[in-house]
């Protein structure tokens, strides 16, 4: 078990103009479950492969524990990796697959067998030990890949989208299994995914990447409550946060015909930037519908015309459009499951005070927290 640290780690592929991972600085604590998340092509897999030694580090350094591993071969790094396609050895049985690393390390057969059987028990694979991978289902293969990593008892687990080839239901199930297993084994884990739900549910901390640049590292809660910039705000959360450009008003921001109060510091920061407009971020669940009777006297909020309603049972998401400054923008509102508006109708919404996020329109950075 060990800490992992990226120090200004950079990877530029041959012939590429822009580095795939640009000066990544990341400290991962001993036993921590860190999730790297981002859209495809953001450099998250490359970052992981740099740590594995499968991708050349062209700048900066990477440490595992006290050891610098920047230029070490993968075999010398004491890591175990779970691949997206599982990368099982097709010519070996499940037991041989799981015991391969130990066999290479020259451990005696009995001990290997014992360790493999122990891991198989944890993963519910005991009855498949003598099968070849092609005779297994996707979920079983995924567990074999996990087993191969567990048997090693490495310093660090690396997982590269290990759930993306499973069906939705199995994915949710395995998600909790992996997270539970990691807590139990206490081995430092770096987990790559493009699915922000996985990131939020599994990680102790989440690191969001975009275009090879680290955007924010934080706990899932903080990531949700205090996104550092417009990109993180839009990426974390499902459905995505509504991001709309609004005018600054005297004592808040203008939201339709209503004025929503915002923190003084945020307003001052915006004014200091000399901006007249800011980007307002508000999550679908933080938009309140002003019912027809309960309209406040002077303002009704922003008018949303309902385009589509997605009913999820417990609640529903209204996909509507609003007109701001003559431009039509999409807006998503969460409504209780039993009070679903008609398609084509018009709602008036205002954000819950204190649940708004303000970002600089110019830089995209968060204005004060």
């Amino acid at each position, binding site marked *: 078990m060990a800490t992992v640290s990226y120090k200004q780690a950079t990877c530029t592929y041959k012939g590429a103009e822009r580095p795939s991972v640009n000066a990544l600085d990341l400290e991962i604590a001993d036993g921590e479950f860190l999730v790297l998340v981002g859209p495809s092509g953001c450099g998250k897999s490359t970052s992981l492969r740099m740590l*594995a030694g499968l991708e050349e580090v062209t700048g900066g350094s990477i440490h595992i524990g006290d050891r610098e591993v920047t230029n070490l071969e993968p075999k010398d790094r004491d890591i175990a990796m779970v691949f997206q396609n599982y990368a*099982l050895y097709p010519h070996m049985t499940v037991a041989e697959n799981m015991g*391969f690393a130990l066999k*290479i390390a020259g451990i005696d057969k009995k001990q290997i067998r014992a360790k493999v059987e122990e891991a198989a028990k944890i993963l519910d694979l005991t009855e498949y030990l003598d099968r070849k991978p092609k005779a297994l289902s996707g979920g079983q293969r995924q567990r074999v890949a996990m087993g191969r990593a567990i048997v090693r008892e490495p310093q660090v687990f690396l997982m590269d989208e290990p759930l993306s080839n499973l069906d939705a239901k199995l994915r949710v199930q395995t998600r909790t299994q992996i997270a539970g297993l990691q807590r139990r084994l206490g081995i430092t884990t770096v987990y790559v995914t493009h699915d922000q739900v996985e990131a939020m549910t599994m990680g102790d901390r989440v690191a969001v990447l975009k275009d090879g640049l680290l955007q924010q590292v934080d706990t899932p809660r903080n990531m949700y409550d205090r996104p550092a910039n417009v990109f993180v705000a839009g990426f974390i959360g499902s459905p995505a946060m509504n991001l709309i450009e609004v005018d600054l008003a005297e004592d808040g921001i203008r939201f339709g015909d209503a004025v929503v109060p915002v923190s003084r510091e945020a307003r001052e920061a915006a004014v200091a930037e000399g901006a007249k407009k800011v980007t307002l971020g508000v999550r679908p669940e933080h938009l309140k519908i002003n019912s027809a009777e309960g309209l406040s006297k002077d303002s009704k909020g922003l008018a949303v015309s309902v385009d589509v309603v997605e009913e999820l049972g417990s609640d529903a998401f209204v996909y509507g459009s609003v007109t701001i400054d003559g431009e039509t923008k999409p807006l998503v509102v969460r409504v209780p499951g039993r009070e679903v508006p008609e398609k084509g109708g018009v709602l008036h919404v205002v954000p819950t005070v204190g649940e708004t996020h303000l970002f600089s329109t110019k830089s995209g950075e968060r204005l004060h927290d």
Partner: protein
Amino acid sequence: MSDKAPVPVVVPEKTKPTPARESRGLGSGTLLGWLFLLPAIVMLAVLVAYPIVWSLLRSLFGADGWSDFVGIDNYKELFTDDDTFTALKNNLIWVLVVPAAVTSLGLIFAVLTERVRFATAFKLIVFMPMAVSMLAAGITFRLVYDREPDQGVANAVVTSVHDMFSEGAPYPGARPRNDTVLTPQAGGFITKAGTEPGGTALLPLVSLPAEKIPGDARPAKPGVPPAGGLGGVVWVDFTKGNAGKPGAVDPGEKGLPGVEVEAVRGGKTVASATTGKDGSFTMPASVARGGPVQLRLTEANFAKSFGGYDWLGPNLITAAIIGAYIWMWAGFAMVLIAAGLAAIPRDALEAARVDGATEWQVFRRVTIPLLAPVLVVVMVTLVINVLKIFDLVFIISLGSSQKEANVLALQMYIASFGGGNNQGLGSAIGILLFLLVLPAMLFNIRRFRRENR
């Protein structure tokens, strides 16, 4: 059953003529099937089955044709005849060596081209020999294996490498002017009479081309013997026009520098000296103290230079032809194996690396097992091909060592048409060859079946 059940319910009611049509349909279906098969069956029968049966029958008759029934005598002869036995032995060598060698070489090339720049160009060059006809390749390799290093590339390479590591003798082919003074001994020459202390030995040599005499050689001059020692000269006893006296140092005759001279007493070498630029040498008094000594010009001065190997000679011929065959087929193995390599999942290799395997272990324990099906295909194809080998052996060994290079297919040809004129024996060899190829074919068929399943 279940999907047939509704048919009788629906059909008889609605369309009465259907049964007739159906039975006709069924009949014509089988007939049609056979019709479609017919061309293939005819071709197979004419080109495969008929020749096999004919050969089998013919092998039971002797050289004089169908009137000359000999039973299994042809087969008896086959296993007692020396030529056929050589052919069988050579075929065995071919089968044991060639598929393994070609496959390993192809594997090495395939792995290397994965990591090398200009891989396509390299592959093209290695694959090119496949496009050359066996006949042309055979003729080319006859030249390659030519005995003279000036013509044969193989010997040119071998001799130049050899000369790189061992310097040749300075005066190959030189011999004494006459045998009154020197007689041949163990590749060198030794004086007949002993030389007394204080004496001077004149050792004349001839038969040296002018270019073999070093440019810095000075006119010959006998070495002045030190007190109690002895001296002498080794020189070319020949001038233009042959004016000089044999056995005497005449003006214009040159000394031979760098000749090893040994003093021998009672068969034992007691001292040695090397001649100077004027061909002179001296030996100290300590050598002559025990009485007269014989002087020996050692073999190292005269040994014939290394001329390469006799590739097309009886000893190396099979190895030489196998070399040519490997050159032709390595490209074939490489292309197939390279395709197999490309199909191996990258992440399985990466997983092995992360699992702690060295590159060699990855290759040995992951790459090779995953490549095994391709390797087997290449091997089996080569075994079948090698058993049938004829043209290359025929061309390369033509006229020189055909007897030693013989293989079954060639022996079959020789026995039937090329001199033997015994088609019965030829057919028997053909049947033997067929029986040898059969296991490889059966193995292949079983593998195809397993793959289809």
